[in-house]
Structures are given as C-alpha cells and as structure tokens.
C-alpha cells in the first residue's frame, strides 16, 4: 500500500504502487447471495499488472528522498540471497532498537547460513541472542517478549526444528491477539531455511508451510530471490502480525543485483515472474526455478506460460491469481510441499471455489511425493517435482501444440 509520505520511507516496489489502495469502511453484517469474491477490495492496479516487478521502480510512487535520478535498473549492487537477508535484517535492526534476533548460533558464530554474520559486533550480544538448543522455550520467550512490544526475529536453524515449538507458534503466537480480545499483538518474525536440500535426510528436509498454514493469526511468506528476500524480511519485521518467513536451503547462494535504495515488498502480494497467455503456473520458493527452467522448453515448443510466484502463502493473493486465471483459464500449481495437506491443496481448493467459472479444465497440481525424503540422490530427485514433469503437465493441460 502506498504509504503517506514520511521522511524515511522506502520506495514501495509493488504492483499496487500505481494505484494507492483505498480501504473500504468496515462493513456491517450483510447477506450476499453471490460470494465468489474473496478478493481484496482495493482499487484495481490499472495496466501495471503484467509488468515484471523489478522494473516497476521507474513508475512507482517514489517518495521524496528515495531516488535521485537513477532507478533500480541502473546501479544497485550484486549480492547473494543470504547477504540480502542480512542486509534487510541489519537495516531494520538499525532503524528500530526493539528488533532483536534470537536463535541458535546466531551471535558469535554468525548464523549457520551466515545471515547474522557480524551482527554481534555491531549490535551487541543483548540484541543478537545465542540460545541453547531449546526451540520450544526460546520461541516462547520471543513471543512473551513480543507481547511487551519488542520485535524479535526468531531463527530456526532449520525450519524442521521449529516443530518442537509448534505449540508455542500455534497456540500462543497465532492466537494471543484473538483470545486477549485485541489487547496484545505479537509482532514476531519466525524465519529459517526449510525445504528439500541436497541429501540432507528426511528430518532436515521438512516443509513446514503445510503444517502451519491452518493456524489462524499467522501470516506466511516465502522468499525466492535476493530482491524479494530483503524486501520481505523488512516488511515482515515491520508488520504487526506474526509472520513466518520461509527461506530455502538451496537458494542461499543465488546472486542478483538489487537496488541501493531502501525498499520493502508487500507481504500479501504475489510476484509476476513471466507474463503469458496460455496457462497460469503458480509456484513459490525453489520450485520457481524449476518452473522457469521448464518454461524455456515450453516456449520452444510454442507455449506461452504465465508464471506467478505466489510469495504470500497465507493469505493467498487471490487478486493477482484471479486476474491471471481470467486471462489464461488454465492453472497448474507447482509446489514442494507434499501432496497431502500442502499449500497446493489449499490453493487448489481456494481457486476452484472462487474462479470455477473461469476455468477451462481441472487445476493441475504437482507436489512432492508423500514420503519422507530419502537420503539417496536419485530417490530424492524422484521425490521432488522436476522440470520435465512440469513440461508434461502443461502439455497435458493445454493440449499438444
């Protein structure tokens, strides 16, 4: 949402930038006879919906001191994903003294994926807290601290370890705002690497987004590029709701050029990766890269896929998704969660409910197999969706060309 001008405001790079959202007044109880809409009731972003995110900067509503003459398409600096996360986190910690980091080996060691490297020297050991191996209690502590107004960032060394803190996250983090009648807010960020890596074994290859997605009160986002990693990290820290930021073990070394100026990404928005017209492919995190790789083959064969990185896992950006479906009338979801109870399952159900009339065929969904991730390399590859499968699925849904 384009924010009112204030001196230190970042540029908002987002699809909505051109059209500032006008929030509707809270409605009284009404009966609706057609309820297809689960759409955010905001002003339509005019023609900017198909423009790739990175280049919106030139037309974005820039607030005053943001950018001199250079937009993000010139200049900027190159870095790896974990450095982008570090930049985002560091900037927020400088900006707000209430932001602190809690996790295992985040302090002196610098973080197991180097996201907090150098922070102890910069911010002191009271703001970068090395905890013992006690996920349940340090997540609980972060939630308790958040109740008083601090903004902790909890790092799970691997997302799978946060299963030990499931009670705290589900019962306390997600629900305290509700059960206290709005008295307490929990502005916490829980982040960490998850997903299937390279032969890390079953217990270190968990996809927690499927477990947490039904906890009310949580917001979930998944980053996939250095650009959106930094933007989402900053937005998540500034958000008043508890946010879970899902990173992926295999994406930490992705390199990209990101803007020098300060920016945040919208937490609830999806990202247009490649506009197209034949089919809408919805994906997130690492699978985005499998999809873009498959897209090369698909384009060669004459297809024109529209690829959307949904980014916001809870809530879904039904607006962007809906606009795309209205254009293409076919949907394929490619995810890394397991088939049963994954993000794809919920997304499929939400799309079918809302956009049934727009669909020309069934919604395809490619997910990982319902198995513990095996250690053996070839077996692990079979567990996860691979580009040839994506190509085959698109050909199936769109018909041969």
């Amino acid at each position, binding site marked *: *949402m384009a924010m009112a001008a204030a001196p230190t405001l970042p540029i908002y790079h987002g699809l909505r930038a051109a059209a500032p*959202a006008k*929030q*509707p*007044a*809270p*409605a*009284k*109880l*009404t*009966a*609706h*006879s057609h*309820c297809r*809409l*689960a*759409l*955010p*009731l*905001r002003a339509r972003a005019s023609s900017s919906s198909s423009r790739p995110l990175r280049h919106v900067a030139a037309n974005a509503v820039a607030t005053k001191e943001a950018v001199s003459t250079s937009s993000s398409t010139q200049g900027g600096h190159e870095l790896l994903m974990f450095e982008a996360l570090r930049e985002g986190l560091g900037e927020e910690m400088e900006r707000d003294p209430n932001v*602190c980091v809690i996790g295992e080996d985040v302090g002196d060691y610098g973080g197991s994926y180097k996201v907090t490297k150098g922070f102890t020297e910069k911010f002191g050991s*009271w703001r970068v*807290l090395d*905890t*013992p191996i*006690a996920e*349940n*209690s*340090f*997540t*609980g*502590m972060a*939630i*308790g*601290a*958040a*109740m*008083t*107004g*601090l903004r902790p960032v909890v790092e799970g060394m691997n997302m799978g370890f946060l299963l030990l803190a499931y*009670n*705290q996250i589900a*019962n*306390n983090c997600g629900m*305290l*705002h*509700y*059960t*206290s*009648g*709005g*008295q*307490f*807010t929990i*502005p916490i960020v829980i982040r960490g690497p998850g997903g299937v890596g390279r032969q890390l074994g079953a217990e270190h290859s968990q996809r927690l987004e499927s477990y947490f997605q039904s906890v009310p*009160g949580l*917001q979930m986002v998944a980053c996939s590029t250095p650009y959106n990693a930094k933007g989402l990290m900053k937005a998540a820290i500034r958000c*008043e*709701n508890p946010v879970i930021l899902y990173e992926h073990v295999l994406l930490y070394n992705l390199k990209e050029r990101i803007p020098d100026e300060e920016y945040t990404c919208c937490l609830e928005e999806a990202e247009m990766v490649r506009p197209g017209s034949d089919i809408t492919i919805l994906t997130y995190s690492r699978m985005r890269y499998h999809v873009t790789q498959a897209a090369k083959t698909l384009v060669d064969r004459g297809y024109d896929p529209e690829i959307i990185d949904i980014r916001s896992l809870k*809530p879904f950006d039904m607006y962007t998704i809906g606009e795309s479906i209205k254009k293409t009338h076919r949907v394929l979801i490619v995810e890394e969660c397991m088939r049963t109870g994954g993000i794809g399952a919920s997304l499929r159900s939400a799309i079918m409910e809302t956009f049934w009339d727009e669909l020309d065929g069934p919604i395809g969904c490619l997910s990982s197999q319902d198995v513990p991730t095996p250690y053996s390399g070839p077996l692990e590859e079979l567990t996860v969706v691979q580009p040839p499968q994506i190509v085959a699925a698109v050909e199936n849904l769109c018909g041969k060309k």
Partner: protein
Amino acid sequence: MAVRQALRRAGGRLLATQGAMAPAALGVAGRGLSTSAEPITLEIPVPFKGHNVEPPSRTVETSAQELTEFFRTMFVMRRMEIAADSLYKSKFIRGFCHLYDGQEAVCVGMEAALNDKDCIITAYRDHCTHLGRGGTVLEVFAELMGRKDGCSLGKGGSMHMYNKKGGFYGGNGIVGAQTPLGAGLAFAQKYLKVEGVTLAMYGDGAANQGQLFEAMNISALWDLPVLYVCENNHYGMGTAEWRSAKSPEYYKRGDYVPGLKVDGMDCLAVKQAVKFAKEYALKNGPMVLEMDTYRYHGHSMSDPGSTYRTRDEISGVRQERDPIERIRKLLLSHEIATVAELKTIEKEAKKEVEDALAKAKESPSPDSEELFSHIYRKSYGAQAYGADRKEVVVTLP
C-alpha cells in the same frame, strides 16, 4: 479495579470496584475498625525452606490497613469463585472452569509485594490473578459467560483472561507454555531496562514440563529477572504429586536456580517471600518459589475433587489452614476489627459480587462480526466468510 493499588497504598482509600460499594464502610461506624498504617510486626508461623539461598526472616511488617485489605480482597475472590461454581452448574458458564478458592493467599500476598512495573503470567486458574492485577469482577463474570463486556470481549473464556494495563499476560490453556513466555517477559524487562520482575506461575502438574527447565536454563544463563512461582496444590488434576514427580520438592528442582518453599496459605509469608525474591531477581537472576497451597474445588468443575483425595483432607485443610480464617483471627486478636465489623465487610463484598453478577448477566453476546476481528492486527481489506459464504460476510479492517 485497584485491588493492587489498594494493597499498596498507605492511605485509607478503599477498593474502588465496580458495583455498588458503600464508600466509607471500613470506617463507617467510626469506632473499632482500625485502618491505620501503623506497622504491626508479626511472626510467620511456618518457616521458609531455602535451596541454595538463605531464606528471609520470619518477621514481617504489616499494618491494620493492609490486613483488612487482605481480608476484603480474599473474601471478594472467594465469593466470586463460589458464584462461578453456581453459574457453571446453571449452565451460564460452559466448557472448562478452574476455580481458585483456597489459593487466594498466593495472588493477594504477591500483589502486596509487587508494583505496576512487574508482570504476571499464569496458567488457566486465573480468575483471581486477573482480579489482583486490576481486573474487575464484572469483567471476570462477563468473560466466563462469554459476553461482550468480558476482559477478552467474550472470545477468550475462563482460561484466557488478560489485562495489558495491569501487566497481566494471561491466562494460558496449555500448561507449561507460559513459563517460556514469562522468561520472554523478563527478557523484555531487562532489554528495555524496566526495574521490574516477571512472575511466571505454574502448578505442580506443569512442574514436569521440559520447557520449564529450558526456560530456567536460559533465564539463569542470561540473568533474567524472573520468578518461577510453583503453586503446589498437591494434585495435578487427579494425580497426586508423589505419583507424578520423582522429586516433589519443587523448590529444589531448579538445581542451579535457588529456591524457596513458602506456606502458600499465609498472605504474609507470601508477601515476605515475593519481596525477598524480587530483590534477589533484580540483581541476580531467576529464583523458584514453591507456594504450598491447596484448592478446595476439584481441578475443574467437571471434577468432583473427591475421587483422589478424602473429604476429611479437604475439610481438615479448610479448618486449619484457610487463608481467610487466618487473617480473620489476626484481625480479631489484634483488635483491628470486631466480629460485627467483619460481618459488615463480608456483606458488602457479597453485595459487590452479586451486583457484578447481575450486570454481567445483562451483558449481550458479542456480535457475529467479532468472529473475524482480532485475527490479524492490520489486515488488507479482504472479505471473510462464514461457512456457507452467504450469511456472515465481513470486511476485515
């Protein structure tokens, strides 16, 4: 409101609670009932037991006014819990209802040693703790009955009462989970340099939760100003302490965290212990306080409370150790009040509770829109539906 303030003040102000309360009751007849703040020195009958720490002295200073406040407050709490009992039986309160009668001395004694910089977090037996932190009887009753005027707008219920202004952080359903939350509150107090302590309360049942020991470890490592208060009422629902804990000496279970065992049925002992522990925690880090207390009701309203203990045991404790009777004896023996004056106080307390109850019964249920409010702090203008997508449609803020 102002239970806590009243206990702190040296002046002769009364508890200003909701519902009718004849103003000058405590001094109305003008004779006899002393509200003086003159210090009275008393000896605590049951000695403290220390683990890795020298226990505080058994000599405690109090005043006529403080003792009278203790009596009145505990009586209000007792009436409130008894009223909740009958509300439950007449189905105004549903679900789970865990009553605190018998344990009043713990929260009242604690409040006498704390101020508004301190935080309290406890488990589900929280009605009286909520009152002690500045809640009103009306709020408690309305919340128990799920009405709009409840402290959590009717959405929390018996186990989820909170008071942000008063520094009361709940009200938690899953026992044990509040202890790391409490350590986090203490961490925030230290981070923000607030000179206060956090009392993370739990029971003998939750004393065996792993997260409690994780939290103790971290708070001892980082010297957090947290007091782990174990309200040992000797039964974790139906399981006696000797059947669930290899070592039921909960004040020793902190190991490297020093501990104190306190007679939890004696307001003054609790006050002394918390005062001592607070000073300790602000300088040195966590301490465990085991309050040896007892609950007269069963674990909750669905538990008769007599299948795992004898009625003789319950009535024995009621006769010998009841906290209200103890204060009553003190008030009479030190000639602070006469029997008639105490009767007046009791009558007024009963009236106050009844008035609050009547008002709470009139309070309406929350509107349907409240179903979707407070899920997110700031939302994005989306619509939310009821199950059939036709009836309940609300635009989130």
